[in-house]
């Protein structure tokens, strides 16, 4: 299968794949927007312990975190039109991209809601008490004191969620969306240079991930400027102290496969 390896193809494919980058970014952007809105709305009932809604939002988060994105894509692509048909809405002509963005949005929204919920929960109770003690109302305490701090806690986790979303979009090809991965498969099949095409694809993702991660770190720093860079009190391996902090590939992160929102 395939022709002899020729590194030249990696570079020829590069611009061709980059041409479909737009589609990938549209999916990422659209899904991100959807997920932030959905995630925030879904987090609210759990923050305020609204009886029935709280259970529903738990169920939502559990389902979207508990099943593979690939299955969600197919489930929504085939299932949503049928469900909507029951209430007489015809979406069978809607472009695939809409389903894809919606699915990624709902998938990522589950992680966003968990992140928001746990970030708010992790803000020290004393902060609210201090806000009350200077006379603030519950709403003022939430918007002025709790939310900004929760955001600062959530941003590093959200960064990981966004990077995971970027990589997950590589699965949209399975529904026939011509984003970068779909394009790379076409190129591979046309030229019979499979490996080169996929290496090229991987490199593009690598570059975008790195750029995106840089941007997110800058954002993080701006939001976290109130946290002084406290030294790791007792690292078990002393040499660790000398590691170049924040060098992007040595950054400590939680597992990105499935972000844990704690």
């Amino acid at each position: 299968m395939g022709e002899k390896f020729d590194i030249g193809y990696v570079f020829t494919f590069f611009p061709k794949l980059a041409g479909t980058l737009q589609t990938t970014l549209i999916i990422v952007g659209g899904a991100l927007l959807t997920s932030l809105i959905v995630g925030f709305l879904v987090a609210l009932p759990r923050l305020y312990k609204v009886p029935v809604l709280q259970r529903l939002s738990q169920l939502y988060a559990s389902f979207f975190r508990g099943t593979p994105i690939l299955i969600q894509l197919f489930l929504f692509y085939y299932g949503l039109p049928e469900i909507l048909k029951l209430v007489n809405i015809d979406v069978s002509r809607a472009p695939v991209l809409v389903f894809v963005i919606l699915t990624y949005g709902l998938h990522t929204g589950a992680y966003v809601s968990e992140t928001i919920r746990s970030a708010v929960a992790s803000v020290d109770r004393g902060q609210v008490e201090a806000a009350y003690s200077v006379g603030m109302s519950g709403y003022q305490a939430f918007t002025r004191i709790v939310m900004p701090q929760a955001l600062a806690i959530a941003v590093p986790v959200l960064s990981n969620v966004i990077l995971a979303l970027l990589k997950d979009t590589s699965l949209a090809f399975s529904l026939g969306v011509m984003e970068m991965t779909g394009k790379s498969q076409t190129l591979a099949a046309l030229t019979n240079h499979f490996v080169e095409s996929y290496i090229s694809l991987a490199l593009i993702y690598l570059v975008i991930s790195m750029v995106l991660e840089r941007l997110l770190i800058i954002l993080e720093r701006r939001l976290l400027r109130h946290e002084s860079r406290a030294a790791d009190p007792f690292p078990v391996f002393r040499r660790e102290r000398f590691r170049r902090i924040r060098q992007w590939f040595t950054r400590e992160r939680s597992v990105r496969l499935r972000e844990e929102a704690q």
Partner: protein
Amino acid sequence: MIKLTGITKSFGRQQVLQGIDLQVEKGEVVVILGPSGSGKTTLLRCINYLERPNEGRIEIGDFEVDCGRASKKDIYALRGKTAMVFQHYNLFKHKTVLENVMEGLVIVQKMPKETARRRSVEVLEKVGLGEKLDAYPSMLSGGQQQRVGIARALALNPEVILFDEPTSALDPELVGEVLAVIRRIAKEGITMIVVTHEMGFARDVANHVVFMDGGVIVEEGAPRDIFNKPREERTKQFFKRIMPEPAYSI
């Protein structure tokens, strides 16, 4: 003048406050002493409604509230007349020293920003932190943080400042600077209610000492009387445990 009448509070089945009556005159410094679990911190937190008392009345100046049916408006009004200094400082972590002090003035008291700023700087200079206006709390020592906490309370110009064990989270060498600041404020005639374990401070600064145990006020009076000749057995026991030597003066 502050007057508490019949304040009760229970957590579940456990009654933490069993009907507390307390009167504090304007400009007085009241120190509340007592073993841990005696309800002294809960009492303090009831005064500004961080804990909701079950029953009782709270009067501050000409404002009066029946705890059984306090509305939101009452609670905000009560908090507007009090300020609190916390054991763990509870500075707003995402705001600078200056912003911490200004926050309540601008957001709650609706003071114009410039006025609030001047007032805040003035108060921060008073606690010796005029140099640290733009620092974030995480860059400060515990003693400095607590002084910001005091400035934040002071700036609000409340009828009373409530101190909840203001030095017990501090390293021993930092206790002095915080106590010095509280002493200085006390001299300015600001009404204060202080929960503390610092006996020397209590003897020195308090006009009135309250000893609590088991959710009731066991005895109260002038510091000299309470420290030197406590009447109640429980008070004597407490002092014996906390000060093995006969009460010493500083």
